[in-house]
């Protein structure tokens, strides 16, 4: 996994609440056996009409936001299905950070496994970033994970919280499985103990 570096990028406003993973990547694209190539299908049913033409009103089709790398989203982003195809599609599109007042649990976890950073902020700060994002491509936002800050195009510095372990993994691009396998001896002894206590399990 790539290390998460400080960057500045264009933030796209998506104020709709309850954006679910069926919206982010509809089921017809879950038939792939690969992780890559889903970016072109991100938000497919909001982004393209029945004939496959772009719907001009959709935010990521607008000239200002085609290169967006940050989403400022409404409440409960990523609810619904566990499909990791949702963060795969966003990441493949070029999204590295999603900001919202809340995220669905599984989507939130899935982001970290793919080098993406979901940031939870209070409503007022999401509103501030939403207004900033609405200014278009000139409004570049900086995200600094080391410092845990987002800096709006007007220079407002917003601090965010993140679990220290997850921060460590993102900053260093660490692979969870490799980390866990370092604890193989603990897993072995747990299995021996649990196997004796609950042999049916």
């Amino acid at each position, binding site marked *: 996994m790539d290390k998460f570096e400080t960057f500045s990028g264009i933030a796209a406003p998506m104020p709709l609440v309850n954006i679910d993973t069926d919206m982010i990547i509809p089921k017809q694209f879950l038939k792939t056996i690969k992780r890559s190539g889903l970016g072109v299908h991100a938000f497919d049913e909001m982004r393209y009409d029945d004939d496959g033409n772009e719907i001009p009103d959709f935010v990521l089709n607008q000239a200002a936001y085609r290169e967006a790398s940050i989403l400022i989203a409404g409440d409960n982003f990523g609810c619904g299905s*566990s499909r990791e195809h949702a963060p795969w599609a966003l990441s493949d599109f070029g999204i590295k950070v999603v900001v919202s007042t809340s995220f669905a649990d599984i989507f939130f976890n899935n982001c970290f496994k793919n080098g993406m950073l979901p940031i939870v902020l209070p409503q007022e700060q999401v509103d501030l970033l939403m207004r900033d994002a609405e200014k278009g491509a000139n409004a570049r936002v900086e995200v600094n994970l080391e410092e845990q800050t987002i800096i709006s195009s007007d220079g407002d510095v917003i601090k965010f919280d993140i679990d220290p372990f997850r921060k460590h993994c993102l900053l260093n691009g660490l692979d969870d499985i490799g980390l866990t396998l370092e604890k193989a001896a603990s897993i072995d002894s747990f299995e021996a103990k649990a196997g004796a206590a609950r042999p049916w399990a």
Partner: protein
Amino acid sequence: MTAPKTLYDKIWNDHVVHEAEDGTCLLYIDRHLVHEVTSPQAFEGLRMAGRTVRAPEKTIAVPDHNVPTTLDRAKGIDNEESRIQVEALDKNAKDFGIHYYPVSDVRQGIVHIVGPEQGWTLPGMTVVCGDSHTATHGAFGALAHGIGTSEVEHVLATQTLIQKKSKNMKVEITGKLRPGVTAKDITLSVIGETGTAGGTGYVIEYCGEAIRDLSMEGRMTVCNMAIEGGARAGLIAPDEKTFEYCKGRPHAPKGAEWEAAVAYWKTLFTDEGAHFDKVITIKGEDIAPVVTWGTSPEDVLPITSTVPSAEDFSGGKVDAAQRSLEYMGLTSGQKLTDIEIDTVFIGSCTNGRIEDLRAAAEILKGKKIKDGLRAMIVPGSGLVRAQAEEEGLADIFKEAGFEWRLAGCSMCLAMNPDQLTPGERCAATSNRNFEGRQGRGGRTHLMSPAMAAAAAITGRLTDVREMM
């Protein structure tokens, strides 16, 4: 004396392999269920890293999302991508030596129906699957939740998950349910009350007389939709009904091991005085048969209501409600019972079990569906299908005009050919009414099997109590 614990605390504590100073835990996983859609990239990851499946005997795979449910499915899958995905699971199951129920096996079905049916799911276990509706297994007092594909790979390789503990929420449904009210109405009503993000960060324990009174099938319906309320998992403490359901299942313990298991399972309840971070209490008698009107499972109303207007809401929900009304093609003030439907879908991991089919058959017996309506019943597993045939339910469905299908996820998420067309309106017993969920432009109203059966007869959303 140790502090009183919740059911969740107890199961959690019994599965912690390692706890770091910041509270990050390595949690042991007893059962890993696998289906074809969320697993290929995980197996590919194992191959690329030269890793094996750590505990193949605890890993169970079954194809369900992509499989055709038409009676001619032995001929194979027409859609190439779907076929490749199912073939990949065939190969991965064989290569890695995990338990497998192929499409041709009578035991094949929706993973969340097969697990309990085969006795893989037992009280006190940790159960995961790359599927959000893994919450279903919580009905057994098992800590069960959905995971992403990277976590599927992590569990395959290590039989553990990196987790932080969630908060405890209690949802108590007191007293008795009124006639015509089912487990589906309970679970939808709870989401209507909490919203789809109300459970975020929590594990819910459902309790109270109305929950105790439910069958295991009903309890699975309730827990299945815990995820639609945003919760990581739903739990119901095991009791005699649970033990009775598990006893004699192919992979349930036998003999002395069974006795030891039951003795342990009887310790799995929330201690008197244990702390819950959030408590919601609903009177069973206040729950009515409900349907959804919008495109989020929180858009729940009693069938006797009218379609709301966007102004009835506040904050970001105003725009979302407006968008839902337009997508659903509804006018505020319209009576829900005046909404005409084109299609009825009975099935899914929410409502594809034998009790669900019995409830539908009771309404449909000796009746015909409305002329021109498209109606299908998709049993949750091959064994549910066989039992329904043995009980004569299949004949009732066929005589009423329903298509009687083979097992699979089918129109719940429309990855196979069972899909809605744009504007087609469906009374569905599944779990999600999201935009495009059942097919691009399709309009979904969620409800119980009895309500869906009633709607099939009249051709519009219907209060099932008028038919009882």
